[in-house]
């Protein structure tokens, strides 16, 4: 079967060969049984997310709380704000869609229900899907993202459907903080507001978290970083949820734009800078291994993380399909073969990494490169316009940059930086366009802290602007595996003596 999007990752691109650097360490602190369950999970493992596919179905429109960063009304097909979808599916359509995708994409391993409202505020629709899928595709892992308000009430039902991964969004453990994030909840037939609402929500979230971990269900906690509201408080959140058994705490940046019509957007609440986000992620990682590859993926995305194949499975095609046409039993056999092969490959990579103390990239060129970086050299952050593990994108086409840290001990994946795509296409790509320029400025601001940006190509104007702001553009490694390219640039910097100096002062920004 030809799978254009996935084919080159499975063949072993750069990201796949060196596995995004930190993955084995990031999992090192976990108990063996949890590590075994997480290490090949496409949502949680940095290694596995390059190989497996996952999808979300939008079947849960209702919600039972209001968050100040959300506006149910102004959803938009172009944005990637979590929980926003353009196409609501009935449970029946969702089941056909999942089975069709799982038959066409044997890498498919996870189905999530994550929105556009709260899955547990839509229990009948949500559990109908889980029930049917556990029956017809028992190998597909099921997961659920929730605000936690109804968790205690549904923990037993969740356990019955064998849903072993639950994500709870927990933004605070202090009701006073919560009152600045949640204007109201719907609770016991009333709309409850203010500190009281936050107190109830927090209580239910914490109880739900405890009940899930007590039943051996994996729990990830997501937090939205809201500067001036919960930024410092999130360190406390991280400690508390870890103590209660959450295996991962993922800090995501607030997205607040006036055009989304959210409370925060309209009231001028600031979003975190890339540096603020990284500081928090680092602080929380001190408590709990934190894998930073989690995208703010749309709740109806199909495919490998970051790759949206939704267009191949539109409502028209799904509606034309009947369950009888899907041979889900032989699809499951095929999936087992593909999954086993992927897991073997991941095992081999882990094994291979255990042996050399030197990063493989360095080792390979060490002979011709006596000037290989010595341990005294400072680390450097580099942004990469990458796809499927290789340096693949035009600077102006990148919707996000992958940030890597290169140091004498190797290359490590740090996180994502989103951009407002500044080059929207030939027709809008006029020179000197003021609006476009400001997007370029924003992109450059998003890359703050990085000293190099790697891309396949870059225009003349952004080149100049990048250099002027102290970021060196580099288009010489197009289509090379990301880690190899980053290490090569690092070695060039080392050879030209640039790494002996302290980092440029703008790095502290």
């Amino acid at each position: 079967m030809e799978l254009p999007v996935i084919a080159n990752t499975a063949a072993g691109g750069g990201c796949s060969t060196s596995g995004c650097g930190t993955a084995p360490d990031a999992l090192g602190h976990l108990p063996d049984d949890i590590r075994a369950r997480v290490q090949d999970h496409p949502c949680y493992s940095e290694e596995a997310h390059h190989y497996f596919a996952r999808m979300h179905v939008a079947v849960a429109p209702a919600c039972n709380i209001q968050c100040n960063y959300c506006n149910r009304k102004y959803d938009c097909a172009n944005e990637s704000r979590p929980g926003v979808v353009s196409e609501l599916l009935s449970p029946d359509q969702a089941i056909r869609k999942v089975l069709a995708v799982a038959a066409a994409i044997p890498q498919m391993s996870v189905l999530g229900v994550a929105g556009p409202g709260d899955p547990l505020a839509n229990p009948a629709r949500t559990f109908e899907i889980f029930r049917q899928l556990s029956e017809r595709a028992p190998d597909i892992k099921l997961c659920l993202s929730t605000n936690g308000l109804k968790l205690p009430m549904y923990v037993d039902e969740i356990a019955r459907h064998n849903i072993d991964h639950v994500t709870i969004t927990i933004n605070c453990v202090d009701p006073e903080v919560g009152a600045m994030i949640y204007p109201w909840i719907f609770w016991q037939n009333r709309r409850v507001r203010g500190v009281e609402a936050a107190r109830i929500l927090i209580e239910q979230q914490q109880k739900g978290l405890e009940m899930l971990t007590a039943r051996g269900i994996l729990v990830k906690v997501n937090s939205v970083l809201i500067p001036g509201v919960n930024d410092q408080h999130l360190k406390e959140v991280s400690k508390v949820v870890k103590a209660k058994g959450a295996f991962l705490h993922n800090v995501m940046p607030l997205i607040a734009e006036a055009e989304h019509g959210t409370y925060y957007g309209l009231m001028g609440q600031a979003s975190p800078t890339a540096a603020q986000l990284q500081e928090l992620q680092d602080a929380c990682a001190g408590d709990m291994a934190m894998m930073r590859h989690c995208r703010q993926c749309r709740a109806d995305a199909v495919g490998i993380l970051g790759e949206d194949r939704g267009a191949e499975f539109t409502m028209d095609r799904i509606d034309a399909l009947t369950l009888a046409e899907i041979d889900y039993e032989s699809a499951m056999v095929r999936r087992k073969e593909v999954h086993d092969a992927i897991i073997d490959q991941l095992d081999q990579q882990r094994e291979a990494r255990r042996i050399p103390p030197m990063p493989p990239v360095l080792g390979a060129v060490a002979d011709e490169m006596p000037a290989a970086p010595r341990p005294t050299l400072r680390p450097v952050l580099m942004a990469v316009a990458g796809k499927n593990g290789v340096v693949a994108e035009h600077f102006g086409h990148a919707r996000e940059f992958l940030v890597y840290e290169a140091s004498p001990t190797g290359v490590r994946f740090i996180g994502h930086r989103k951009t407002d795509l500044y080059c929207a296409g030939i027709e809008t790509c006029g020179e000197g366009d003021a609006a476009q320029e400001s997007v370029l400025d924003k992109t450059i601001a998003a890359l703050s802290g990085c000293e190099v940006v790697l891309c396949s190509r870059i225009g003349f104007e952004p080149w100049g602007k990048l250099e002027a702001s102290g970021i060196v553009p580099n288009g010489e490694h197009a289509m090379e595996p990301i880690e190899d390219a980053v290490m090569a640039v690092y070695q060039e910097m080392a050879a030209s003596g640039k790494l002996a100096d302290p980092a440029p002062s703008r790095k502290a920004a």
Partner: protein
Amino acid sequence: MALQITDACLNCWACADVCPNDAIALADPHFLIDERKCTECLGDHAEPQCAAICPIEAAIVDELGVYLNPPGSLTGIPVARLVEFGLWKGAA
């Protein structure tokens, strides 16, 4: 006596799921309340359930056309700000 849903509704299903009288149904272009079934929740709940969960301001009105959740009442965004951004037309 019955409540009504206005064209501000965004079809999120929340009200339909909580109505004790099964009075709310999906319709085109938006959910509608069956006035023969709606009791305004009297006898069942202290608050009309649809209006207590609906996330959209101005989506539910009473027989006099009065909003159960007027602009600004759910989000806390000042009405002046909503008007400034073209999200509310002004005096209602």
